[in-house]
């Protein structure tokens, strides 16, 4: 009996060793350990042994079974590892094929710039104000110190509609509407659509502006310079420097054109800045006392500044667009780039 068991063990271990792969190992298990297997068959002979010998041989049977079992397990797990390694080795994707995609949506560049500028000014404590695009002459011109028959009106070619209404030529009437509604202190920013009857490569009959207004006690022209410096640095990067030049707007005094160092050449001079190193991006100034008179603020009590910028101009500089008309042609090949 013992000899038979030892022989079976030797045979089983040899079979395990020779078995190739998971299936062969399962067959070995059935052959030796299955219900009709060789070990089971041998165990049937246990009954014929003496009562002294039976537990000893029984013990031996268990030991041999455990050993075969564990050898099979080891074999199986290594066979599975091998199979996995082989599968991994054979599997490949072409990572250069394009992925499965949806079409991306985009916002219009004008919207992007308006949102960005409003966000910057929100951080500086300005809230957003709005006003109508079809506007009274009084808000668009008179209250802003453009008297009738004043040459300054030539600066803005106006579209007229009936009832003494017009398409606003700038976002500045929002200043007037806000000051009539609110008392100082106030800080507002007013993005919007404006119109002038002019159309060529650099002028569009419809375009966009953002107006800013801050009125409080003791506001200075130096504060205007400070706010605009922070703003342009945030919009165009810390390196841009700001230059204020005297200019003229009927509703501000002193008035300034605000230049930033050219974002393309860094101030060395290029085609975009016409070799001056500077780009004009803003008009600004201290609110004219005449404007305060129209909105019934006391010009001796408070002071403030206003500024306005063209959104198209900023979008063109920011995204390297050289023809303003592209912004309104709505060619999807253009729009998808934003």
């Amino acid at each position, binding site marked *: 009996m013992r000899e038979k068991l030892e022989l079976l063990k030797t045979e089983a271990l040899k079979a395990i060793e020779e078995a190739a792969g998971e299936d062969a190992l399962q067959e070995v298990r059935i052959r030796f350990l299955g219900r009709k297997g060789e070990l089971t068959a041998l165990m049937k002979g246990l009954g014929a042994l003496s009562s002294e010998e039976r537990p000893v041989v029984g013990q031996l049977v268990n030991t041999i079974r455990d050993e075969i079992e564990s050898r099979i397990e080891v074999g199986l797990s290594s066979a599975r590892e091998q199979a996995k390694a082989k599968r991994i080795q054979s599997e490949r994707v072409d990572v250069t*094929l*394009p992925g*499965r*995609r949806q*079409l991306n*949506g985009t*916002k219009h560049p004008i*919207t992007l710039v308006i949102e960005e500028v409003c966000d910057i000014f929100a951080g500086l*404590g300005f*809230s*957003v104000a709005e006003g*109508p*695009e*079809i506007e009274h002459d009084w808000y668009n011109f008179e209250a802003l110190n453009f008297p009738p*028959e*004043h*040459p*300054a009106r030539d600066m803005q070619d106006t*579209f*007229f509609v009936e009832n003494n209404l017009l*398409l606003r030529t700038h976002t500045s009437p929002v200043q007037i509407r806000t000051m009539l509604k609110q008392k100082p*202190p106030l800080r507002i920013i007013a993005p919007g*659509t404006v*119109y002038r*009857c002019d159309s060529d490569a650099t002028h569009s*009959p*419809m375009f966009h502006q953002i107006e800013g207004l*801050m009125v*409080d*006690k*003791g506001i*200075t*022209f*130096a*504060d205007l*310079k*400070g*706010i605009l*410096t*922070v703003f342009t640095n945030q919009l165009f990067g810390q390196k841009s420097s*700001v*230059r*204020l*030049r*005297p*200019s*003229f707007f009927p509703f501000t*005094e*002193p008035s*300034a*054109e605000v230049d930033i160092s050219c974002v393309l050449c860094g101030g060395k001079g290029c085609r975009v800045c016409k070799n001056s190193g500077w780009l004009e991006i803003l008009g600004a100034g201290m609110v*004219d*006392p005449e404007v305060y008179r129209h909105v019934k603020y006391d010009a001796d009590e408070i*002071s403030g500044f206003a500024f306005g910028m063209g959104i198209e101009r900023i979008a063109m500089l920011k995204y390297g667009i050289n023809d303003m008309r592209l912004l*309104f042609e*709505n*060619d*999807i090949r253009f*729009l*998808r780039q934003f």
Partner: protein
Amino acid sequence: MKVTYNWLKECVDFDLTPEQLSDLLTMLGLEVEGMEKSGAGLDDVVVALVEEKKQHPNADKLSLCRVNNGKEILDVVCGAQNFQAGDTVALAQIGAVLPGDFKIKRSKIRGEESCGMLCSEKELGLAEESAGIMILPAGLTLGQPVFEALGLKDTLLEIGLTPNRADCLSVIGIAREIAAKLGKSYTYPHTPIREGEESVDKIIGVTIEDAEFCPRYAARYISGCRIAPSPEWLVKRLNAVGFRSINNVVDVTNLVMMELGHPLHAFDCDQLAEHRIVVRRAGEGEGFVSLDGQKRSLLSTDLVICDAERPVALAGIMGGENSEISDSTTNILLESAWFLPSAIRKTSKRLGLHTESSHRFERGADIGGVIRALDRAAGLIAELAGGKVAKGVIDSYPGKSEPSRIAFRPERANQMIGINLVDSQIRDILTRLECEIADQADGSWEVTAPTYRVDIEREIDLIEEIARVNGFDKIPATMPEAQVVSDRPSAHQQLERFVRDGLVASGMNEIINFSFTAPDAADKLLLGADDPRRAVIRLANPLIEEQSVMRTSLLPEMLETLARNINLRSLDLKLFEMRRIYLAKGDNMPHEPIFVVGAISGSREREGWCQARGAVDFYDAKGIVENLFEQLRIEGVKWVADTPEPFYHPGKSCSIMVGKKRVGSIGEIHPTVQENFGLEKPVYCFELDFEQLVDLSCQKYTVKAPSRFPDSSRDIAMLVSAELPAESIIECVKSVKSSDVERVEIFDLYCGTGIPEGFKSIAIRIRYRSYERTLTEDEIGLIHKKIIDSLVNKLKVSVR
């Protein structure tokens, strides 16, 4: 405004290069928009002496010259005949580039070598025409660039003036600015006048009938003039700043206008009835032929200069044909006047007649400079046309007023600008600007600005001058000390961004179209005759008819945008626009609500190796809107097939309702509208009233923790009437109110083979799940049976 560097130097002594001058002016608010150097790039054209000239051996008309440029003797072939050995000439050396990009190279002409070219004035851009080469005066340094040697080096500055700076519409005006900035003095151009014996008021007379429109009118009389072409210096000076030379008298008036900024007019005095000037308003409909030959019909708001009988000039704008200086003119009445800016502007604008003169008068000429300009011009005319100036000046000045004294607080200037100048610095700046200062007992000042500064009327105007002349670059950048008053963006502003973000997340591209459209847009949309969107707001002065009315719908431009892109072979489009529309409100301000329009066309997916490319349909559009409403947390949305709009396919469109409010519509564009816009493939659109979305959007909400128990799903396939809206099935399921029904979905829709006519097969999946426990088969079976019973009883479905 054009002015040259050399001309300015005649009036003020400064030590700046043209570039430095340009910076200085720009930083004073006189923006230099362009600079043009005469003789730029012509440094290789030098003074040379012709040492020898002989006949070219192979050409009759050419000569061989030996030319000395101060360094060497060069051989040059020349075709001109008007010179000889010993003449000083302009030699373009090898490498020179003449105007017109004409490069001078070493060449062989008929076998003889030529090392350069002898130039004519025309070739150097100095004259329109020239006969032969340019002969230079003897004694110039050989080898020196010609432009330098002749003193022709100059720089033309183009200055973009703001409308407030009327005083700078002249050379002297700009010179004054330079002088003020640099603390230098300047000199007015001046010609001494030798007056005749006869007193001017014996010869001519001036009557002002309207002292409001014409507060001052001065005149001189010059007799015995000979009208002739102007001398070369005058022609060149005028040409340099863009004026055409006419004759010696008219040119002088233009020159003095450019020098001093004051427009003048010269009349042929013999054409003036009674040698008299009457300044009055025109009669209604009075006719007048201006210098340009145009017949003009005048109004009583127009000011005219008349003789004893008829208008002879449109005051401050243009002279008349009947009294203009002609070749036979001998006696001249020279006018120097001042007219009310608003009056000049009104007339000039109405007649569309904008002249150098009206440009200055409507911005405000110097009423104190009338006589200076008159005298300068009279002196020059006498000098150039050989006339005699009568004794004295007629100076009718009924509108004389005291100069306004401005109360000024120096500390206010510092406060406003944010700088710290001491009083003496402020006083110095104002003095340099020729302001007079009178100290007041309370420490404030009373300042009187010079008459040419019509823009200085108030304290703030003086403050600006101080900031400007002291230098904007000296103003520090500070942050305001103010309380923060910022409000959060309103719900309207927040949602505006939110809706855009939502549509972009659905893969849509935002477009922006013009707010104006064509008047026939409503027709193309098939809008009914009484549709309120036909009540458009019309522009009085549109650029073109296609942009002459304000939009009442965003759809026409959207469809045009689609068509334009499709023509460019961009076929798969998902576009939206979110802008205002403009609705007339009778006599009130128009209403400008924001609308959202979306449109989709083409394939659902991107083109690709792994993607099926199904065409978009109604449900793609609806899905976008459903997503948006979910993001906006608008609930209770109903899709009501009530053929809402004439521009939609009636069977494939609906209103979008929330409660009783119609918030928009959606549908396939009507085939006829599609044709009207040149669209070949179907387009699906939606239109949403943003203002309503703002009202309905719920920004406050709470969320629920998900159940921790397992779910179980049951399907029901049923045969229903083809007309039955799918939504009623879902509603019927939900009407069996059970908290254990987690979700109901339609997962299959089929009609066709195997389904009887007039029916469709719909399959729904119900997912059951409890918040409290794992549901048993029996519990689920009970609810599921109730649902099936309800479907069968209420909707008469047959379960398959």
